[in-house]
């Protein structure tokens, strides 16, 4: 979590447990879940991706969830067909699994989220939601097709939605009363771990560990020679699996901001980078990326780790002073947004959770657009409805990236 963010994952989960304890539990079978519901109304949970974030992600499934399966591509030789798996497809076949926590590398997040929902499971998926933009739309479609619950594994927006000042900003932006004259500028400077999560450009092939299914680890991405730096947390440094520190930390930083400025259903239309020419496989240094929405809102991501600092616009918020007196009255009469629903509540009530697929997809899109601009080295225009780059074929190829069979969206 970003330093200074008061809502840690652990505090959020505790808060949710407290809220759920006061909530009437509806039996699982009534809600359309799989199989018969035990008297204790326990959900069957599975963890797919058992690295550093695994247990924390599983905790996010909430109370009354029994861990019935763990799965990781590094469990070759340990599989028992009961608790330990190396192939997520075998886990999803189980009828006693209701919920799936996904903590693999992001190159697998969308595919396993979709597959889990196709198998009737609800999903809590680690951030970043996706590796490229089209994956996010596919997750939204799967959520809608199967009426499943999807929650992204970052929760700052819940704290944001309880802050009175942020709620006011949200209401002003959601109202549309600013038209295309929004002058707000949000700058996020530093804390994006750019150098920390860069990739090696001179990695030499190493023998594949016997316990690791490297082909499955690479999954939809190109099958590269094995190197330990491409595995474990350092996978973050490669376009094949993630998008550097920007992708890794970005959803924590910008998801609350996206909520604050009421942008859960749209994306920027202009993206401009300041960065050196990108490496084809390894994430590396960049300076800043400026993004503008159609209504004028500007977001700036600044690494503070390379190049000259961003000096175009100062940070500026949104206030009632930006509106006419008549419009201020309209805001005063607007109801506050509904409280965001936690994942434990959502799986019981079937209400949309606060970090639902569309919102998470739009936030991940911010990160991907920024990385597209960095990777191509040029200003891009984006159509947030068609979800396509406009007038730039090479950049547009990175919006929907081909996958290795048998994996596809």
């Amino acid at each position: 979590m970003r330093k200074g963010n008061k809502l840690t994952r652990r505090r959020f989960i505790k808060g949710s447990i407290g809220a759920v304890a006061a909530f009437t539990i509806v039996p699982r079978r009534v809600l359309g879940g799989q199989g018969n519901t035990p008297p204790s109304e326990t959900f069957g949970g599975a963890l797919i991706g058992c690295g550093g974030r695994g247990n924390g992600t599983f905790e996010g499934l909430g109370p009354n969830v029994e861990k019935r399966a763990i799965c990781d591509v590094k469990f070759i030789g340990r599989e028992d067909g009961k608790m330990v798996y190396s192939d997520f497809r075998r886990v999803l076949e189980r009828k006693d699994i209701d919920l799936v926590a996904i903590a693999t590398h992001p190159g697998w997040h969308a595919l396993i989220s979709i597959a889990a929902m196709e198998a009737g499971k609800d999903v809590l998926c680690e951030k970043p939601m996706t590796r490229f933009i089209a994956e996010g739309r596919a997750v939204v479609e799967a959520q809608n097709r199967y009426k499943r619950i999807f929650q992204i594994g970052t929760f700052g927006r819940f704290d944001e939605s309880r802050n009175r000042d942020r709620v006011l900003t949200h209401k002003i932006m959601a109202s549309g009363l600013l038209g295309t004259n929004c002058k707000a500028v949000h700058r996020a400077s530093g804390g994006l771990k750019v150098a920390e999560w860069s990739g090696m450009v001179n990695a030499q092939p190493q023998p594949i560990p016997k316990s690791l299914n490297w082909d499955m680890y690479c999954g939809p991405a190109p099958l590269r020679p094995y190197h330990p730096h491409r595995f474990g947390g350092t996978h973050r440094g490669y376009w094949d699996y993630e998008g550097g520190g920007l992708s890794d930390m970005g959803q924590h930083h910008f998801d609350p901001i996206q909520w604050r400025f009421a942008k859960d259903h749209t994306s920027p239309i202009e993206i401009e980078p300041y960065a050196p020419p990108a490496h084809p496989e390894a994430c590396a240094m960049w300076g800043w990326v400026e993004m503008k929405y159609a209504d004028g809102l500007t977001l700036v991501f600044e690494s503070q780790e390379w190049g000259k600092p961003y000096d175009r616009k100062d940070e500026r918020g949104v206030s009632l002073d930006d509106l006419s007196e008549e419009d201020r009255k309209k805001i005063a009469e607007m109801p506050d947004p509904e409280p965001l629903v936690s994942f434990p509540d959502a799986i019981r009530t079937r209400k949309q959770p606060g970090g639902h697929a569309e919102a998470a997809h739009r936030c991940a899109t911010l990160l991907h657009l920024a990385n597209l601009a960095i990777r191509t080295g040029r200003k891009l225009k984006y159509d947030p409805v068609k979800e396509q780059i406009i007038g730039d074929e090479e950049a547009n190829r990175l919006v929907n990236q081909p996958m290795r069979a048998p994996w596809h969206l």
Partner: protein
Amino acid sequence: MANPSDNLADLVNQMPDPDQRGMYCTDIDKEKIEAAIAGIHQGGRKNIKGIIDMLVEPGKGDDVKAHYALHALGLHLCKLDDDKLRRQFAKTLASQLADRPKAVQAYLVQEIQAFGGKEVVAELGALLTDEDLCEPAAMALVAIREGAAEQLRNALPKAKGKSRLTIVQNLGVVRDKDSVAELKKAAKDEDQDIRIAATWALGNIGDAGSADLLLDIADKSQGWERIQATKASLLLAERLLAAGRKTDAAAIYKHLRDTRSDPAEKYIRDAALSALAAAG
């Protein structure tokens, strides 16, 4: 007079050195890199071929700078927004595929995926039956899209193993209606991955004549294959709805509504009911 090859070597040497961790994080001079790349560009096709000649297989030498320089050159050409230059670059990459180590070929194909167009689909098509290169070749074809279907379709009769799976799936990605007959055969293949890829491909293409086949597979299979065949059926219904074929789509939904009586598949029944209601 300076030897052009010496000049190219000097220009490639202007690319950054990896730092202590093997990364491009220290002393990254954007202006220096871009000036060197512009200089490489001035040398035209000869310089592109010269950089390719510097590429080696992983573990067989140091080509870090040449590897980066080739990609940076592609980025530079795209910034110039001159399609003739881009095509020349792609054609040069494609012309250098033969007689190179497989890993070097794979890298050239990766660059073609980023920067190439229909002008090089034939060269990519020729790689589709190569067990080591079929995946990058198919990914490049799909990225280029124009002209891809014909290459994939023509390679299918000769393809085996991983190559066959790759082609079957990507015929679905490009939604090639002319492959429906072959895909229906592949939906009955002895290999489960190929069956699943073919059923998905038929669903994604939106072939109304495949509905009974997909539903039959979905009804008779178990586990992951059943999940995927059911998904293919739902996808087909959505494609049919989008094409205005409401009756055909409704037939799929009704079948799933009426046959998914196991409590474990209630969510499929509910999905079908919901879709029927939405279709009106």
